[in-house]
C-alpha cells in the first residue's frame, strides 16, 4: 500500500506544480501603479491601412532609433501590464521574496571580504563600439598528437577505413589535479560514548585521461587516477585512499596505483559504416559504448557510478506526439557493480551481479522528463532489486520572477523476496527549486528531500555517498578529495532534509561565494538530527587554476559542535 500512497502524493504534488505553471488567466492591472491605462493614439492612416500603421511603428519611429527611458516612453509607445498574481502565486512568491531578502546583504558582505565587485547586467544596450576584444590563447593539452584539440590550422592526417569513413586518429591527454589542506574537528559526546574526531591532512588527486579521437563520434577514452586508490575494507567495503600526509597520525598516505579507472570505446554505427546508408534513408545511427565508464541516471539519485564495466546502446533525437527530443539508452553492466547500503553507509563491490537499465530523457513543450529503470541481478546475499525514477524539470513563470524546478520520485523494490542492506524497499521524493534574482547571474536555491523507508540506488560508487550527496547542497556532498566528508550525513533513509543556499557572482563570474544552511531530521531516530551552515569561496586564477575555500560549522543532536575548513587548488589542463 505504501508505494501506492506515496505515488498518489507525488502525483498530487505534480498536479499542483503543473497548475501553478499554467495558471495564466489572471486579471490585468497596470504594471506601474502610477500608470493608468494609457493606450497610444495611432495615426489617422491606421483605420484605412490596417497593419501598415503598426509596421510603421515596427520600423522604430521614435522609440527605436533613440532609446527612451522606461516607463515614460515604451518601445513602440505601448505600456504593458503586469497581470495580477493569483493568491497561490502571492503566497509562493512571498516565500521566495523572504528567502531572497538576505542575498543583498550577503553580497555586500562578500564584496568587503573578498574585495570584489558584485556582478550585474545592465538593462540597456550600449551605444559604444568597442571593437573586437582580444581573446585568450587556446590552452594546449598536455599531449596533442596528429591534430590539436580545437586548434586553428590544418587538420591532422587521416585514414579512410574500408567501410568508407574518414578517421583522423589523434591522441589527446588532459585532466585535472586537485590538492587540498583540510582540517576538521568534531567533538565527541561523553554521554553517548562518542570520541572526538579530528584530523588535518594534505591530500591530492589526479584525474588523467588519454583520448584516441577518431572522428566527431568515435573515440577511445582511457583514464586513471594514479594518486588515489580504491581500497577494499572488511567485507569488501569500498573506499578511496588519497596520496598525502596525515598530520594527526603523522604518517604519509599512499594512494599510488595503476588501476584503470576509465577505458571505453564509443561510436555511432551509422557513422562507422556510412556505405550501409548511402542515401541516409535508414535509421542506423545507433550510438554505442563498451568498456569501463562512469554512469549517472536521475542526476545521480538512481545511478551514480564512476567505474562501471558496461555496454550501452542509444537512440537519439526521436520525436513525435508532443515529444520533441527523445533519447533512449539500454545499459548492461557486469563484473563490478557497486552496491550501497544506507544503514552502515557502506559501499561494497558485488562482482557477481549484473545491471540492466533503460534510461530515457524527453523534451516536451514545458518540461524535460527523465524516466529510468534499473534492475540489479545478484547471485549472492546482497540480493536483487529494481530501482526506478521519474523526474520533471521545468521553469515556472511567476509574477516577480521565474523559477527553476525539478521534482524526482524514485523507488526501489527487492526482488529476492526479502530486504537486504543493499536492497531496501523505499521511496525518495526529491525537489529542487532555484531562481536568479534580478540584474545578475546569482542563484538562490531551496532543495529538499523526503526519504521513506530504505530507498536504495541501483549502484553508487565508493565516494558518492548517499543519494542526498549530489543534489541537496554543498554541505551534503563529499568533496571527492581526502577524508573531508560531508558535514551533513547524505543518506536519505527514513529522513527529511533540505538546504537553502545563495550563490553570488563577483568580478564577472570568476569569483563566487556560496552561503548555505541545511538540516536533516530522522523520522525514526531523534538523536541524529543535524543542522549546519557553510560557506564556499571559489576563484578562477588565470586560465588553469581555481582556488576553493570551504568552511562549515555544524551540530548533531547527540554531539557538540563540529567545524571544518579546507583550501583547495584545482588545476585543469
Amino acid at each position, binding site marked *: 500500500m505504501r508505494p501506492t500512497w506515496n505515488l498518489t502524493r507525488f502525483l498530487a504534488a505534480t498536479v499542483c506544480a503543473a497548475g501553478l505553471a499554467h495558471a495564466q*488567466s489572471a486579471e490585468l492591472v497596470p504594471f506601474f501603479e502610477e500608470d493608468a491605462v494609457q493606450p497610444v493614439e495611432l495615426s489617422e492612416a491606421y483605420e484605412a491601412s490596417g497593419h501598415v500603421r503598426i509596421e510603421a511603428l515596427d520600423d522604430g519611429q521614435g522609440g527605436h532609433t533613440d532609446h527612451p527611458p522606461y516607463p515614460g516612453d515604451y518601445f513602440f509607445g505601448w505600456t504593458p501590464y503586469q497581470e495580477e498574481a493569483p493568491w497561490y502565486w502571492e503566497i509562493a512568491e512571498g516565500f521566495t521574496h523572504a528567502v531572497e531578502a538576505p542575498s543583498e546583504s550577503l553580497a555586500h558582505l562578500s564584496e568587503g571580504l573578498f574585495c570584489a565587485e558584485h556582478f550585474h547586467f545592465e538593462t540597456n544596450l550600449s551605444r559604444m563600439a568597442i571593437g*573586437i576584444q582580444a581573446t*585568450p590563447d587556446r590552452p594546449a593539452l598536455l599531449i596533442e598528437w596528429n591534430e590539436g584539440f580545437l*586548434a586553428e590550422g590544418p587538420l591532422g592526417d587521416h585514414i579512410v577505413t574500408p567501410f568508407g569513413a574518414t578517421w583522423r586518429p589523434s591522441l589527446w591527454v588532459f585532466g585535472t589535479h586537485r590538492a587540498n589542506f583540510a582540517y576538521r574537528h568534531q567533538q565527541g559526546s561523553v554521554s553517548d560514548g562518542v570520541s572526538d574526531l579530528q584530523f588535518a591532512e594534505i591530500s591530492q588527486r589526479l584525474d588523467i585521461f588519454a583520448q584516441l579521437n577518431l572522428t566527431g563520434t568515435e573515440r577511445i577514452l582511457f583514464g586513471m587516477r594514479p594518486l588515489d586508490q580504491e581500497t577494499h575494507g572488511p567485507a569488501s567495503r569500498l573506499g578511496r585512499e588519497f596520496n598525502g600526509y596525515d598530520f594527526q597520525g603523522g604518517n*604519509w598516505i599512499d594512494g599510488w596505483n595503476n588501476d584503470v579507472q576509465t577505458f571505453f570505446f564509443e561510436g555511432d554505427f551509422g557513422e562507422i559504416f556510412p556505405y550501409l546508408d548511402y542515401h541516409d534513408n535508414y535509421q542506423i545511427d545507433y550510438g554505442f559504448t563498451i568498456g569501463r565508464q562512469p554512469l549517472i541516471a536521475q542526476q545521480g539519485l538512481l545511478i551514480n557510478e564512476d567505474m562501471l564495466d558496461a555496454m550501452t546502446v542509444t537512440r537519439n533525437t526521436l520525436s513525435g506526439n508532443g515529444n520533441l527530443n527523445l533519447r533512449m539508452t539500454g545499459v548492461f553492466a557486469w563484473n563490478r557493480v557497486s552496491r550501497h547500503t544506507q544503514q552502515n553507509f557502506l559501499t561494497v563491490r558485488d562482482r557477481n551481479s549484473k545491471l540492466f537499465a533503460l534510461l530515457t530523457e524527453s523534451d516536451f513543450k514545458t518540461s524535460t522528463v527523465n524516466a529510468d529503470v534499473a534492475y540489479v541481478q545478484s547471485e549472492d546475499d546482497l540480493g536483487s532489486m529494481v530501482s526506478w525514477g521519474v523526474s520533471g524539470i521545468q521553469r515556472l513563470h511567476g509574477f516577480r520572477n521565474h523559477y527553476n524546478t525539478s521534482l524526482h520520485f524514485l523507488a526501489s523494490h527487492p526482488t529476492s523476496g526479502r530486504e537486504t542492506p543493499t536492497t531496501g524497499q523505499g521511496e525518495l521524493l526529491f525537489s529542487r527549486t532555484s531562481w536568479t534574482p534580478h540584474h545578475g547571474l546569482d542563484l538562490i536555491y531551496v532543495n529538499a528531500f523526503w526519504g521513506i523507508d530504505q530507498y536504495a540506488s541501483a549502484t553508487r560508487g565508493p565516494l558518492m555517498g548517499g543519494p542526498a550527496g549530489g543534489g541537496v547542497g554543498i554541505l551534503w556532498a563529499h568533496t571527492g578529495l581526502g577524508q573531508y566528508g560531508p558535514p551533513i550525513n547524505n543518506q536519505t533513509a527514513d529522513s527529511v532534509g533540505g538546504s537553502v543556499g545563495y*550563490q553570488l557572482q563577483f568580478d564577472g563570474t570568476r569569483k563566487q561565494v556560496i552561503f548555505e544552511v541545511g538540516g536533516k531530521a530522522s523520522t525514526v531516530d531523534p538523536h541524529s538530527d543535524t543542522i549546519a551552515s557553510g560557506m564556499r569561496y571559489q576563484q578562477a586564477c588565470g586560465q588553469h587554476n581555481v582556488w576553493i575555500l570551504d568552511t562549515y560549522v555544524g551540530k548533531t543532536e547527540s554531539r557538540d559542535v563540529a567545524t571544518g575548513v579546507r583550501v583547495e587548488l584545482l588545476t585543469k589542463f
Partner: protein
Amino acid sequence: MNLPCGWKRGMTRISAAGAALILAVAAFHFTPRLVHSEEAEPATLTLSAPPAKVVAARAKPALLTEKPTGHQIPHKSEDVIRYGADQAHMSLFVDNQYPSAKQCAECHPTHFREWSVSPHAYAQLSPVFNCMQNAIKILTNGTNNDFCIRCHTTVGMQLGEKTDMSQLDRHPTAREGITCITCHRVNLEYGKGSGRRVIVSGDITQPVYGPLGSKVLQQVLADPDQYGVLETAETGNRSRKIHGDVQQFFSMASPSFCGTCHDVFGPNGFRLEDAFSEYKASPAAKEDGVSCQDCHMGKVAGEARGYVVEPIAHIGNAWTTPRRRTNHMMPGPDYSILHPGLFPHNVEAIREEGAEETAPGAGLATMRQWLQFDHEAAWGTDQFEATIPEGYQFPDAWREPTRRTEARRILNDQFELLAEYRQFAADTLRAGYKMSKITEPSCDRSGLHFKVKVWNGTRGHGTPTGFDAERLVWLYITVWDSTGKVIHQSGDLDPNGDVRDTHSFYVHNGKVPHDHQLFSLQSKFITRNIRGGEREQILPITFSLDPLPFLRPETSALNVQGRPFAARKHKQNIEVGGSRWAKYHVPTKVLTGNGPYNVRVQMKAGMVPVNLVHRISFAGFDYGLNPKEVARRIVDGHHVLYEENFVFDVHSRSLSP
C-alpha cells in the same frame, strides 16, 4: 601498484610534499585576472583604422605551405621569413591554393550570384556570429577556440588564421565563409564532424568535386572552337584558367554531406544543433526519400519541387548544354545586417587592401572605404549629388562624385539582390511554419478569448531547426478599439528590441513584466546549477558549477547521456507532424468600451534575439558596430510571415456582442 617499496614510499612523500608546496606557493600567488571583462574597455573607433586592427596585428600571416608541421605554426624562423617576404606575392600564392568564389564567378555567374547573397556567403562575415564565438571563447578561457568558426570559415582555419581577427583583415577566400571550395574541394566522407573537414588545396586549374562528374566539362574541353582555348593543370599557360576535371563525389548530393556542419555537437557532447539527426528520423528520409538538397537547392524555396534544367557555366561567349542545376542561394532565417557594400559579395565592389585601383578585376573600394560610404544619406543618387550642401565633408575615398555615383550603381544591384533573397527567405520560412486563422473567438465576463494554431509545414525536420536555441519565431498580437487605441499586445518588443520573455534584460531586471501569453518557438539553453537544478541561459556556459569553464573532451560516454553533465538544450520547437495552440485572453479591464475590437495576429521571425547581442557585446563587434546598432538592424530585418485579422463585434465593457 607493484613498485619497490622504498621507491613507492619516496614517491608518495615527494608527491604529497609537492602538493603541499603547490598549495603554499599558490597561497601567495594571485594570478592576474584573465582578459575576461564583461565591461570591456571602450576604444575610440575610426573606420579607417578600426580597433580590430590591433587584434589582427597579432594574427599570424598566411601560410607559405599548405600544411606545415605542428599545430602552433608558424615557427619562429618561419615568422622571420614570412615577414620578410613580399606580401603581395605571398597573398597571390595562397590565393592560388584556395581559389576565391570570385574566380569561379567568371564561368559560373548564376551560381555566384545566388551564392553571393546566401547564408553560406554571410556565415563568416556576420558580426553577430563573430562576436558570439569570441564571447564564448573568452568565457571558456580560450578552450572553445575554433569550435564555432571551423564551420564558418574552413579556409580561414585551414590557413591558420586567428579566431578573433577582423573580417577586414582576413584572407579574401576565408572571408567568403562557406565558399565554393568549401564543398567542391571536399572528396571524403567526414560524417558528423562539426565542420572539421579538409579542403583539398590547389589552384583553380586543379580538379573540383561534384555529384554528377565531368560530362559537361569534357564537352567544353573538347570544343575549343566554341568555348575557347582553356588552361587546366595538364596544359601550359593559356589565356583562360579552368578546372581540369570534375571528379564525381556522389556524397555531395547526400544529406550526410550537409550533416557535417548541420549536426553540431561539441567534444564535450553538447548538442548545439541536430538538424541532420532530426532529418534522419523524419518521414522525409524514411518514407519520401527526399534529401536536404531537394528542398533547399531546388526550384521552389523550401519545397521538394524538382530542379531547374539550365546551363551551368558560361565559358568564352557560350553557355554549356543544359542539365540539372542546383540553386545555391539556400535561403534561410538569417539576413544581413552589414553595409550593403560589403554584402552580398560583389566582384565589382570590393578591392583588397593594397591592390592597385587600376588592377584588372579590382573592385571599386576596399572594405574599410565602403564602411565610410553613407548609403543612408543617399550618396551617389542624382538627387543627393544635385543638392550637396556647401561645406559637406566626404572621406578621401569618396570625394570624387563619379566614385559615389559608381558606388550607388553597385548598391542598387546589391539592394535588388537583397530584396530577392528576402523574398525567397520568407518563402522558405513559410514552408516551415504554418498558421491558422483566428479560431474559437469568444467573449465572456472575463474578456475576449481567441486561439491560433501553428504547425510544422515540413516533413524533414522540426521547426525551427538547427540553431534553434537562438532562432526567434513568435506571434505578435495587437488588439485595438474603434478609435485606434492599442489596448493589448503580446509578442511586442521591449526597448532593446526583445520579446518580453525571460531572456529579455528588461524582464530579467524587473523593469517590464514578463509576457505571460507569449507564443515563441525558441528552444532554450539549459545549464546545471551548483545546486538547485538547472536554469535557462542565453549562452550555455556553466558559470554556476565552475568559475573556470574549461572545455575538454567529456570523460563519460557522450551518447549515453546525449549531452554533457553541465549543459543541454531544451528543445521547444515543433516536431514533424506536430502543432501548437496559442491561446489569448484580453481581460475586461483593458477594454475601453469603444468596440468593435480589432485583433491582428502576425507570425514573425528574427534571425537571433536581441538579448544574444546584449549578452555577447562585451566581446565587441566588428565593422565598428555598436550593440544598439546591431540590435536595430536585427529588429529591422524581422520577417512577417503571416497575418490574420479578426473583429470582435462587442461595443461595451460588458462584452455583449
